């Protein structure tokens, strides 16, 4: 019994890590007042670039870095469009998802990326965990420290609440939001890269399968805090693992209900734990200086 619980927890943690990185990336942007509905597109770009670069350099860490840079570039573009041009962030996010799917599909078919079987891999320890698993869990603490214990974090959260006050203090709102967009996108990109080069060793079109959208739910569930976000990710991961475990147990559990579990669990958790959620006051609101 205890072994069963341990293997369950092991699976929950391991397979939730790509979603954790994506969620932390989305969190970074949302506390700064930028809604990132385009995390799915950024994540699939990370998956594609990650495996291509890993294969080219023969090193998954190098591949992850390139994936982060590629996703960061998309984050910068996203930032430019929402900060400078003040495009509707929700619509732009959807557009980024479409562009991400389209671009990765086109590149995959041009370069047969799904034919790459990665030979290099991350080191795996006795628990079956890779270094990015520990880095991801450590990142939760690091993000908490940054957001609540550093000047940068306080400025970031202030920009999400009232950018005008931040501007009055002589701090550039644009710089902060650009920084949030780039860092956030890089984290999302790393999540995508870990999916294709860590947990799997291949790329498949649309392999992220909606994790970018789940990241948004996890951040909202977590009340825009790193630890809450981790909890949201683990709850969804637990539901996912449970749905497969119930079917694998051979109990004849209806598969349709089993597949609903992670989503129902998330909705129930949101109902019980997410009342009085305080969104950043300027979330999704474009900022115009001197207005």
């Amino acid at each position: 019994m205890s072994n069963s619980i341990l293997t369950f927890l092991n699976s929950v943690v391991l397979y939730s890590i790509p979603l954790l990185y994506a969620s932390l990336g989305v969190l970074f942007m949302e506390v700064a007042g930028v809604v990132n509905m385009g995390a799915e597109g950024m994540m699939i770009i990370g998956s594609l670039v990650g495996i291509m670069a890993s294969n080219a350099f023969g090193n998954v860490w190098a591949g992850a870095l390139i994936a982060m840079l590629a996703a960061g570039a998309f984050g910068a573009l996203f930032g430019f469009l929402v900060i400078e041009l003040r495009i509707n962030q929700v619509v732009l996010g959807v557009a980024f998802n479409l562009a991400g799917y389209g671009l990765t599909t086109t590149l995959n078919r041009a370069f047969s990326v799904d034919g790459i079987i990665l030979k290099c891999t991350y080191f795996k320890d006795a628990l079956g965990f890779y270094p990015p698993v520990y880095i991801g869990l450590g990142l939760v603490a690091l993000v908490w420290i940054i957001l609540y214990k550093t000047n940068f974090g306080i400025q970031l959260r202030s920009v999400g609440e009232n950018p005008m006050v931040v501007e009055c203090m002589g701090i550039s709102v644009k710089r902060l939001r650009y920084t949030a967009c780039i860092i956030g996108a890089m984290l999302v990109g790393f999540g995508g890269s870990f999916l294709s080069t860590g947990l799997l060793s291949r790329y498949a079109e649309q392999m992220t399968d909606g994790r970018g959208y789940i990241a948004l739910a996890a951040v909202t569930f977590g009340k825009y805090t790193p630890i809450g976000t981790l909890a949201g990710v683990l709850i969804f991961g637990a539901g996912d693992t449970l749905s497969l475990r119930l079917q694998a147990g051979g109990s004849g559990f209806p598969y349709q209900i089993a597949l609903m579990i992670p989503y129902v669990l998330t909705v129930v958790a949101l109902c019980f734990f997410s009342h009085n959620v305080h969104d950043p006051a300027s979330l999704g609101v474009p900022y115009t200086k001197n207005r």
Partner: protein
Amino acid sequence: MMKMIKKVLAFSVSACLILSVSACGDTASKTSTAAATAAATAAAPAAATTAAAAAKTAAAATTAAAGNADYKSKKIALLLAGSANDGGWNQLAAESAKAVASKYGCTVNTSEKVATTDYESTIRGYAEQKYDVIVCHGAEFLDVSKLVAKDYPDIKFVNTSSFEGQEPNLSGIDFGSYQGGYLDGAAMGLATKTKKIGIIGAMEADSFRAWVQGVTDGAKAMDSSIEATTVYIGTFDDALKAKQAVKEMAQKGCDTFTQCCDAAEAGSIQECDDEGLMNIGYVADRSNLGKSVMISVLQESGKGIEEAIDEALQGKLAAGGVIMAAKEGIISYTDYTGTYKDLLTADQKAKLQTVYNDAKGGKYISAAK
């Protein structure tokens, strides 16, 4: 000046969006927003044409060396729920569509990654444009095919992985789902050491149910003590979920696996590779995905689709259900491959060959036979 820059940039972004929608076909329809759905619906057949299909159609139209003059003007549509590049189920169909375009010099348009919410609008879009034959590749389309076919009696509809059609113009074709599963299961039954096998499916449609039943029956025919466990992952794309499914079943003692979930199969086969488990491929030769694949059952749906389109164009395709299987050359085994290619003894291989020969003779078509 800034206003002009904004207008230019906004136009450029819109153009990029439209181009990316065109490039990825019905990937646009995967996101369930009103704007994306409306755009996909309004331009369904046009926007859904993949660049490859368009190029092939143009090439076929201009060369048409083997083109039949009667069919050059014909228009054929193919709808896929998954990616035309999945290396299996959908790719076989997409390639058959290209083959038909080359053969007849006719227009063939392929819509891939058609989202469930867009099935009806996409099929109707082709019907409104008076396509001659509309092929919906997969059991998931059947209900909508039946609905739309009633309104367009002059158009031939073909729905694959379906045991039933509908008068007067909808033909359902099953590509030996049960029989393919039986051959799959027979190989698993001979390979397994723990007498526990794992089956991973994408969804529980009729054809999947038939396949799962076939796998179970085929395995038990080899050894009645074998236990079969089935997990449906609910997706054709999420390879990680397929990997997790194998891990969960392996923890319950399963040592031999098979899967039918298109692009997601890479995950299940990888887990088998990583954990030293055995795998039997289905639909296509899956030995390219991992060395744990001992043998694969081919389901050459592409051949079947070409035949069906041929008959539809000639007006010979009957409404109703038809099964094409080993006898028709649709179901077969590949060679033994990978790490476990010599796992089976000579006797076991002979036994498997007998099963295949029986299948070619018409056995194992359905659970009742």
